[in-house]
């Protein structure tokens, strides 16, 4: 009995790590760059497929693939911001209009990315096996790759926290998140910071995708579900709060694990129920302002 609870707990944390990672990415894009990136899941998918392709073709370890897929997805995000959203930002008459238009542009990107992936890699399910051997502790068995995923997510989260707190760019990001105009007046190169944030958010998604591909099967249409989860997590954590998204990710992972144990196939429904409860009771989320 105790073993089962422990099982569920750890499984929840393992999934929660990935949720936390991708949610922080989306929180950066929405909270700072003010782009509600509903194509976020497609960056996850791209990261996953690049890893799968590299592993299948050259047997490169996914953990090494991260050094390729990460920067690649970052560049895509950065360039996308500069080419598309920066221009929308200057031509939109108000922030509300910008938010609406950038969201719709992401809608377009969603279908571009998904169909590009189908054209390149096909629409069927793919997968590979890596470090799938079980590790046992305290009477429970867990695949090594999932444990590595959790470790990675936590490590990356901590590194990011330090980045935000200690580095110059990190401070610029925090300033831009609070008040872009004021930050600009203080000498922060706003357009570069916003593009950087967007790219960073994409990078986290790509990273999440790489980690996912180690343990789960992937498909060109996988993005939508993860975007939904990321959206729910950032609402749960509080819109605009990056630490909130991190914590929210783990919380939601736990919920998903419990629901999957009781009734598999209903986890997404459960997430939405939480979403609905939040909207009814506390839309600002746990740490929202």
């Amino acid at each position: 009995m105790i073993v089962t609870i422990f099982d569920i707990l750890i499984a929840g944390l393992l999934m929660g790590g990935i949720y936390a990672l991708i949610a922080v990415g989306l929180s950066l894009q929405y909270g700072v760059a003010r782009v509600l990136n509903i194509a976020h899941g497609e960056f996850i998918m791209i990261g996953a497929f690049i890893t799968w392709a590299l592993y299948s073709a050259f047997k490169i370890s996914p953990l090494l693939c991260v050094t390729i897929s990460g920067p690649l997805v970052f560049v895509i995000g950065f360039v996308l911001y500069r080419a598309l959203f920066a221009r929308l930002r200057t031509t939109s008459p108000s922030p509300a209009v910008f938010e609406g238009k950038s969201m719709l542009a992401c809608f377009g990107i969603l279908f571009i990315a998904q169909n590009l992936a189908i054209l390149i890699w096909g629409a069927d399910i793919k997968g590979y096996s890596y470090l799938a051997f079980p590790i046992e502790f305290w009477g429970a068995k867990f695949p090594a790759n999932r444990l590595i995923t959790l470790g990675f997510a936590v490590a990356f989260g901590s590194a990011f926290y330090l980045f935000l707190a200690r580095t110059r760019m990190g401070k610029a990001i925090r300033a831009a998140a609070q008040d872009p105009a004021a930050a600009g007046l203080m000498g922060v190169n706003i357009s570069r910071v916003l593009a950087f944030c967007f790219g960073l958010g994409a990078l986290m998604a790509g990273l999440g995708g790489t980690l996912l591909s180690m343990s789960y099967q992937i498909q060109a249409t996988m993005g939508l579900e993860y975007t939904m989860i990321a959206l729910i997590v950032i609402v749960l954590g509080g819109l605009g709060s990056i630490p909130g998204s991190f914590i929210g990710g783990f919380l939601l992972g736990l919920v998903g694990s419990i629901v999957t144990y009781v009734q598999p196939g209903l986890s997404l429904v459960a997430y939405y129920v939480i979403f609905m409860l939040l909207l009814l009771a506390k839309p600002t989320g746990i740490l929202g302002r």
Partner: protein
Amino acid sequence: MDIPKLISSKRFVLGFLFILLVVLTTLPLYAARYSIVLLTTIFMYVVLTVSWTMFSGPTGYVSLAPAAFFGAGVYASALLGFVFPLPVIIVVGALSSACLALLVGALTLRLRGIYFVMFTFGLVELLLHFILWWEVTITGTTGRVVPTVGNTTVYYLMLTILVMVILTTYLIKHSRFGLALQSIGECEEAAAHTGVNVTALKIMTFAASAFFMGAAGAVMATRWTYIDPRIAFNPILSFLPVLMAIFGGMGQLFGPVIGAVIFTTLEEFLITRFPYYYMLIFGIIMVVAILYLPDGLVGLTQKLWNRISGAKYADP
């Protein structure tokens, strides 16, 4: 003869529409079967696009849920196809979509617009997962058969829904509620302070738009004959109406209509030759339209038209 003035006169437009309606109504008598089927699809997209514009146009609340409401109508057909006659099913489908919209609206439309967008974005996938789980776990069926009716019947049903939705949108737009919806879109706080019950109006209009989407879904189900949750709840049907409305232009009523006609014909043309390329192209068109066509094709044409005919401020 002042051509621009002639064309923009009300009588000309009404005459044109009347002739068009007569042509469309008598078409099944002499047109090829393929044309009827294609036109039915065009009608469906026009209904979805105009319904979407009914709410999201004036208020600026972007709903990403058309596929969910359409799917609810489809599923009504799937569940009740052999139990009730088609007209009843259409009404049931329409009403269940409207009720779903009332729920979603009551939940999200009292809050900031961003919650509405997020919630409607995931609604299609949510319904898909839920109904899939229900069909697998509780009812044990994964696909359902819908009784067929002839192509001509589907054509006329769709045409009727089309006329109704266009009429409804026109009447709302030119009524006090249309004015109020516009005020909500331009400055919601000021609208509330002018006595407009903002939340109630949003929810009711949202439900009205879902009503027609559900009706369309119930009708189209009969054409597909075999329905499973994945067929009924297809995210592409959320994307296409939004694209068509934005490309066509949301200022005037015929903007969405033109957008729908253009893209449906384009889709028909491309879907057989380049099935994955065409969605890619549509995605690119969406991005380009957002960047360079803020008022859509119709808005662009209107600007040029105003320059030609010399008008600046139209009569109120």
